[in-house]
């Protein structure tokens, strides 16, 4: 890793990191602050749900969604924080290397006496530290706002910790997959559509799957691998699914180094 590349990259990310962190914190605030009024409606729901056979509810993806409890509701809110985190991470992943080629700075960078692998490592670490800052903000705001609005309710800390711990892998998935896809493509004109497609597309896949029942297609989305409902309800990860995410991260990472060290870089002439 080269410190100067790292610093330069980190500085470039900083503004966007702050914006994302503030937005996610605000989002969590709004959702959690609405909890007490929503809890009453949710209590009604639980009564209705108790009447149904379990299989049907599972098929409907609503098994165990207890929105009247603090954590049940939070798992619902957390999904929206996940969308933001996914788009942010995908954004950084897609722009990591492609931005140099788009702005014609790649030939300058690669003319420096630094190996390509080292450049990639520095850039990845810089993006990751940016994501980690957002991650920490999510931790702080989750605990802070839950405690602020919980009133006299209590909650278990362990599922919440597991939920928050999943963010790291979740972010890495979108960062590395974004990076790998950006290296597979010849040229990326604008990063946002790609980041949106990856981040939001995965979300839509997961929700749509939820509404219509399980299928193999939903296995590819990290929103299912780290389904907040599942984590809160079981107090554990769905390990086989988490392994899919981890495998995707490793493959993308190795693939990215392989592709980047062999990449044909366009230059201004």
């Amino acid at each position: 890793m080269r410190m100067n590349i790292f610093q330069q990259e980190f500085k470039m990310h900083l503004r966007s990191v702050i914006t994302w962190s503030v937005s996610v914190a605000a989002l969590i605030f709004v959702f959690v602050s609405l909890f007490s009024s929503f809890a009453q409606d949710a209590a009604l729901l639980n009564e209705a749900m108790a009447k149904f056979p379990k299989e049907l509810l599972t098929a409907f993806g609503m098994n165990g969604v207890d929105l009247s409890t603090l954590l049940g509701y939070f798992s619902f809110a957390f999904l929206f924080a996940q969308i933001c985190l996914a788009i942010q991470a995908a954004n950084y992943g897609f722009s990591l290397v492609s931005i140099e080629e788009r702005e014609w700075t790649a030939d300058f960078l690669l003319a420096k006496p630094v190996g390509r692998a080292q450049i990639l490592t520095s850039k990845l670490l810089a993006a990751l530290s940016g994501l980690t800052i957002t991650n920490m903000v999510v931790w702080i705001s989750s605990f802070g706002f839950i405690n602020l609005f919980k009133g006299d309710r209590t909650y278990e800390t362990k599922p919440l910790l597991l939920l928050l711990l999943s963010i790291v892998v979740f972010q890495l998935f979108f960062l590395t997959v974004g990076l790998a896809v950006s290296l597979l493509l010849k040229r990326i004109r604008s990063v946002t559509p790609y980041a949106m497609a990856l981040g939001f597309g995965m979300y839509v896949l997961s929700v749509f799957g939820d509404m219509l029942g399980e299928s193999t297609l939903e296995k590819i989305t990290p929103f299912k691998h780290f389904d907040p409902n599942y984590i809160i309800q079981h107090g554990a990860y769905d390990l086989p699914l988490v392994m899919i995410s981890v495998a995707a991260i490793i493959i993308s990472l190795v693939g990215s180094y392989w592709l980047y060290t062999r990449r044909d870089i366009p230059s201004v002439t």
Partner: protein
Amino acid sequence: MNIFLRELKANFKSLIIWGVIVILFAVVGFAKFSAYAGNPDMLAILNELPQAFLDAFNMQAFNLTTLSGFYGVMFTYFALILSIAASMWGSDIISKEERDKTVEFSLTLPVTRSRLVTAKTLAGLVNCIGLLLITWGVTVISAQSYQPDSEFYDFLNLSILALFIMQLIFLAIGIFLGCAMKRYKRASSVAVSLLLGTYFLSIISELNKNLGFLKYFSPFRYFDPGMLLHDSRIDMTFVWLSLGIILVSMVGAYLTYARRDLYI
């Protein structure tokens, strides 16, 4: 005219990609519907769920076992996909000139800036209509195997109109951002954050009755598919509001772009 044609050609690939996404989505959706068509168990569950829950999950007032009801759920996702596409096209079509360093060239052509904006807007509009037609076509074709009745077609046509207005809103906002943003790089990210923000608002506005007024800020709540289906009408308040947003954005786009200092 040449600018218009040039833009159409440049955006053609992107239209195809979005078209494929819509088609894939519809095909997967309708494949799942086959398991639900006429399934009484599912109907029983839906009838018992309380309103607040259905609202929060955008499933209000739909009977998933009928074609119209199912399409009502799909509508929300079509709306999302089409809005994302429209806001991407809108924000990109102006700002990409600066990104690709072609803006000096375009502006030395013997056309005024406002004609440039007009040509680009029209190209974006044609793209939106193209994607809308793809959506409409794929829905009609997929629906054929489930004996669509006239009620379904009424609902479909009305919802396509609603989707079109939503596309126009996001296209206009995107174009305005492309014209007005000093830093061209921010245009698409601001467009996306607006889109995400309004989507989240649309969900938050249903969580609490006191927050109902928030729906005026979220185009995703302007056209309630439940109302489209059951009353076969569009709430005119929101049509006027949409037209207002589109008009203000477009006027803003022309005004700001005419005065804009370009990044070269």
